[in-house]
């Protein structure tokens, strides 16, 4: 039997605060970690005058070539040094390239037992016809997980830098953005109507067939993101905001990254403890084959597509 706690007491508990934070009704870090808005810059009249005089005096002294010997010497040798440095760099890089082993030779250190194992046993161990995908999403899936997180962190940084929080800021800067462009451009809209569906279908195909042919999560996600950007440019923010907002992006990335981490944790656990994985590899060449690779491809594709689109929206408008 649960005891009912009075509302006032319940509001003091940690779980209530956590629930508020989860719902987004109250941010516990508000007004504690943010930068304060700067005061407008103003100074006295005399001070401004003095600053101006100082600046003029400094400029006159520094750029007077007859008195400033350092600047004279610097101007003379600057171009020579720049050219010398460029030539040095080019020579060094060309030398380094000439010392590289020749392309495609058998007895070079690149062709060691690692790549031999990938090529010989890749199909049996991962079930992916495309060895590249089998490599990046099975043998080296941990790297790819890190890459997805790098993309997510990059979006977070862009959000921190470019997002306009205040409503009045959004109205002044966000609304002005489309003023200088032709609205409802007929050529662009017709081209977008014809091009956007094939782009989406191609992107989805590239993601889903990543283990069968060339492609994979990253390239397919980038294609879908580019299609979304084209759609946004043709039809404006009002149409895209119906199905894609910051909330959608947050949920999508969270689900995809969590799904990736869980799926990979399972295979790391089984691999490290030498337990047989219960996920069947299927027949190579079928769409539902190669174990976890298809799911991981979809996760990476979702994260990349959302990231590309969010970058564009943040650069353009500073908020959804």
């Amino acid at each position: 039997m649960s005891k009912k706690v009075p509302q006032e007491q319940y509001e003091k508990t940690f779980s209530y605060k956590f629930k508020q934070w989860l719902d987004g009704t109250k941010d516990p870090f508000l007004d504690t970690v943010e930068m304060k808005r700067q005061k407008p810059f103003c100074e006295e009249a005399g001070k401004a005058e003095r600053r101006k005089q100082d600046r003029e005096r400094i400029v006159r002294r520094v750029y007077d070539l007859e008195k400033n010997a350092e600047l004279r010497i610097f101007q003379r040798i600057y171009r020579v040094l720049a050219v010398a440095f460029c030539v040095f760099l080019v020579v060094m890089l060309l030398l380094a390239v000439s010392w590289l082993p020749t392309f495609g030779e058998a007895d070079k250190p690149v062709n060691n037992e690692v790549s031999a194992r990938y090529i010989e046993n890749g199909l049996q161990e991962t079930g992916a016809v495309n060895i590249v995908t089998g490599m990046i999403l099975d043998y080296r899936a941990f790297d790819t997980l890190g890459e997805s997180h790098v993309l997510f962190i990059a979006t977070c940084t862009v959000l921190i830098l470019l997002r306009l929080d205040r409503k009045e800021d959004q109205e002044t800067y966000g609304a002005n953005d489309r003023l200088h462009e032709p609205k409802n451009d007929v050529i662009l809209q017709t081209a977008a109507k014809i091009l956007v569906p094939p782009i989406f279908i191609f992107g989805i195909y590239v993601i889903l067939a990543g283990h069968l042919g060339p492609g994979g999560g990253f390239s397919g996600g980038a294609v879908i993101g580019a299609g979304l950007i084209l759609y946004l440019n043709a039809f404006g923010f009002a149409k895209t905001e119906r199905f894609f907002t910051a909330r959608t992006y947050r949920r999508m990335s969270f689900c995809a990254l969590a799904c990736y981490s869980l799926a990979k944790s399972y295979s790391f656990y089984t691999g490290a403890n030498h337990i047989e994985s219960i996920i069947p590899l299927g027949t190579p060449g079928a769409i539902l084959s190669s174990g976890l690779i298809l799911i991981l491809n979809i996760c990476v594709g979702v994260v990349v597509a959302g990231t590309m689109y969010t970058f564009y929206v943040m650069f353009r408008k500073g908020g959804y």
Partner: protein
Amino acid sequence: MTIFMCILLGFLVICAIAASLSKSLLNTILIFMSYSLVMSVIWILLESPDLAITEAAVGAGVTTVLFLVTLKKIHAIIKKEDSQEENGNE
């Protein structure tokens, strides 16, 4: 195929030099985009279609669009009428 490859590689070098020497930032971005497109063809010739798709989508598509938006935000794309007026005033 070797001649075709040589032409493409020469185009790459020309693009790289032109992108760094071009005065207008808009031209630089367009040259950079064509560099990415040629690079994706070269990836196909080097038998790595995975990279070719990614290069075409990211290098030629999304990066170019982001650069263009940034240029517009910092008002670096000057319209023709404006520049003519400026020349007339001078």
